[in-house]
């Protein structure tokens, strides 16, 4: 694998009507890393994700994914690129008319040539991998709890074994233990599949335990990008209050800032 970033964003400007959200943003996502993306609410974290995914038009700048400029793609190349990433939307975005299993099978049916038996087994495998019970397979999204919807949506985003996974606030709405398991799962997938993960999150536990690097957004630009330790040392006021605030101290509490997930019930209860 080359060292070139799997996603490279340069001078990206995005705005709606008279408002500019992203003002010349630069960001590299390296192959095989889990990048946590933080920033104050309403600053355009989701806008950046949606722009990379091609859901929001950009005003100027370049976005390269897998080394290809997304502007120069033909229709077929574009479709091909879309099979190589998986997206977990904040609300899950499961198809409400389909059962969980059918939801997971949608991308499989469209893009893979699987036998009927393997289609069935592969969907059940994904359901197990994300920690759902087997009987969830035939339930409709309206019959699931919030946490189960998150897991089912993750299973769908993993359906094609993507190379990049976009997660929009994956652990919001999960209980701390579930969130810890979720982080573990993402880390395992990264190790085993060489997955690259772009995670928009406010969960300090996730940032400490799962993320290799953190990028912080502020005023339409990346304020800082680096490891947790580098973030802790950064003098930027928002970063200081974010990583040294009351909630952050509870998570980082004790001599070691980096801890294994969900080992300390007290931390788990106050974190996230």
């Amino acid at each position, binding site marked *: 694998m080359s060292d070139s970033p799997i996603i490279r964003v340069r001078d990206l400007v995005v705005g709606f009507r008279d408002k500019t959200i992203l003002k010349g943003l630069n960001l590299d996502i390296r192959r095989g890393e889990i990048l946590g993306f933080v920033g104050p609410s309403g600053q355009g974290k989701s806008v950046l994700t949606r722009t990379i995914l091609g859901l929001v038009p950009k005003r100027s700048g370049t976005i390269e994914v897998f080394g290809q400029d997304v502007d120069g793609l033909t229709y077929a190349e574009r479709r091909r690129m879309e099979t190589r990433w998986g997206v977990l939307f904040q609300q899950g975005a499961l198809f409400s008319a389909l059962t969980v299993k059918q939801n997971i099978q949608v991308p499989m049916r469209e893009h893979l040539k699987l036998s009927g038996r393997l289609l069935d087994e592969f969907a*059940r*495998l994904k359901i197990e991998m994300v920690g759902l019970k087997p009987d969830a397979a035939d339930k409709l999204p309206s019959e699931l709890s919030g946490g189960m919807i998150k897991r089912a949506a993750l299973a769908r985003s993993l359906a094609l074994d993507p190379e990049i996974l976009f997660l929009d606030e994956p652990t919001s709405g999960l209980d701390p233990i579930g969130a810890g398991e979720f982080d573990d799962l993402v880390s395992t997938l990264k190790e085993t*599949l060489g997955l690259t993960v772009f995670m928009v999150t406010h969960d300090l536990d996730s940032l400490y335990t799962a993320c290799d690097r953190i990028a912080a957004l502020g005023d339409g630009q990346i304020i800082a990008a680096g490891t947790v330790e580098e973030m802790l040392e950064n003098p930027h006021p928002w970063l200081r209050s974010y990583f040294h605030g009351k909630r952050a101290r509870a998570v980082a509490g004790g001599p070691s800032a980096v801890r294994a997930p969900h080992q300390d019930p007290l931390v788990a209860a106050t974190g996230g």
Partner: protein
Amino acid sequence: MRRAPVKEYPLLLTEGLAPGTASLTEAADGRLRLGGRWTADQAPAVEAAAARIAAGGPARLAVDLGEIERLDTLGAWVLERTRAEVEASGGTLAYLGTRPEHQTLLGEVVIRGEPPAPAPRLRFPLSLLDGTGRQVVRGSKEFGTGIAFLGEVVAACARVALRPRSFRGTALVNQVQQMALNGAPIIVLISFLVGGIVAQQGIFQLQRFGAQTFVVNLIGLLILRELGVLLTAIMVAGRSGSAITAEIGSMRMREEVDALRVMGLDATEILIVPRVLALMISLPMLTLLGDLAALAGGGLTAMLYGGLTLDQFLARLQAAVGVHHVVVGLVKAPFMALTIGLIATIEGFAVEGSAESLGRRVTASVVKSIFMVIVLDGLFAVFFAAIDF
């Protein structure tokens, strides 16, 4: 891409394959060597290769993963499945040359739970009876729900009447604007056209008897008593009834109705009473408008095709119809509006979580409303005939 030396190793599944295709070769010492990409996009090749591994029956197999380009959950699952099959038949399957990440992945792909058993199904003659029975029960339950709902709406109206300050005037005016004012153009246009069409056909038939002037009696009575109100009610059912169902249904899906309830607000009072009242106000107004438009359309046609002058048309119309004909049409309108409103709100509240359910309920709302409006019109016709009005 790695090519197996043909002389030493018998080829199993590598003939003429594109680079990267999942492959299986047997080495001289009996080891099975996997190559290429054991990934989801190679699913047919992966399955075929795995079937070849399992086809050996009970045997001591050694599978070499060392030269796999990429292994993902699909490849790992198929391998693990094959291993389980081989072991179930009494053989063994050992992995060789596994990289640590492959080892982890192979450990991850386990299906522990059994698939849920499918619900037992009835055979043909029984299933027909079963379905019919369920439909009948559901139909009668729906009728019961309708009556209960009517009672609830009446009770809510009574509560509002007792506490006039809780009446939502703004919502009512807003709804009337949506239903009556914004709906007026299309209803005027359609009534105008239908009036013209009916008049034209009437003229063609009556001309044979030289009685084309009687077309004024025909359209006057038909439009004022039946057609005007029926057309308007059908249009309103399609236009406003569907809107009510969709609004309430999507509020149900987003738990907005539940939010109202837990805030100590009455969903019936807030959502239903203004809409049903607005329909009962709007439909008579629209009916009158539709009557006039249809008469205008009929009159214009009578002048163009039937050779009547405006004065003749108006004089005949005055002679043919009385105020009671207008009343017969208008009196039906509020009842039809109530029917449309009740069906639309019942269907709206019946929406469940899915987008599909919303679509089904909106369709059901429009179809049932139109059906009930026509049934109601028939009942009124019988009634007015009986009292000779």
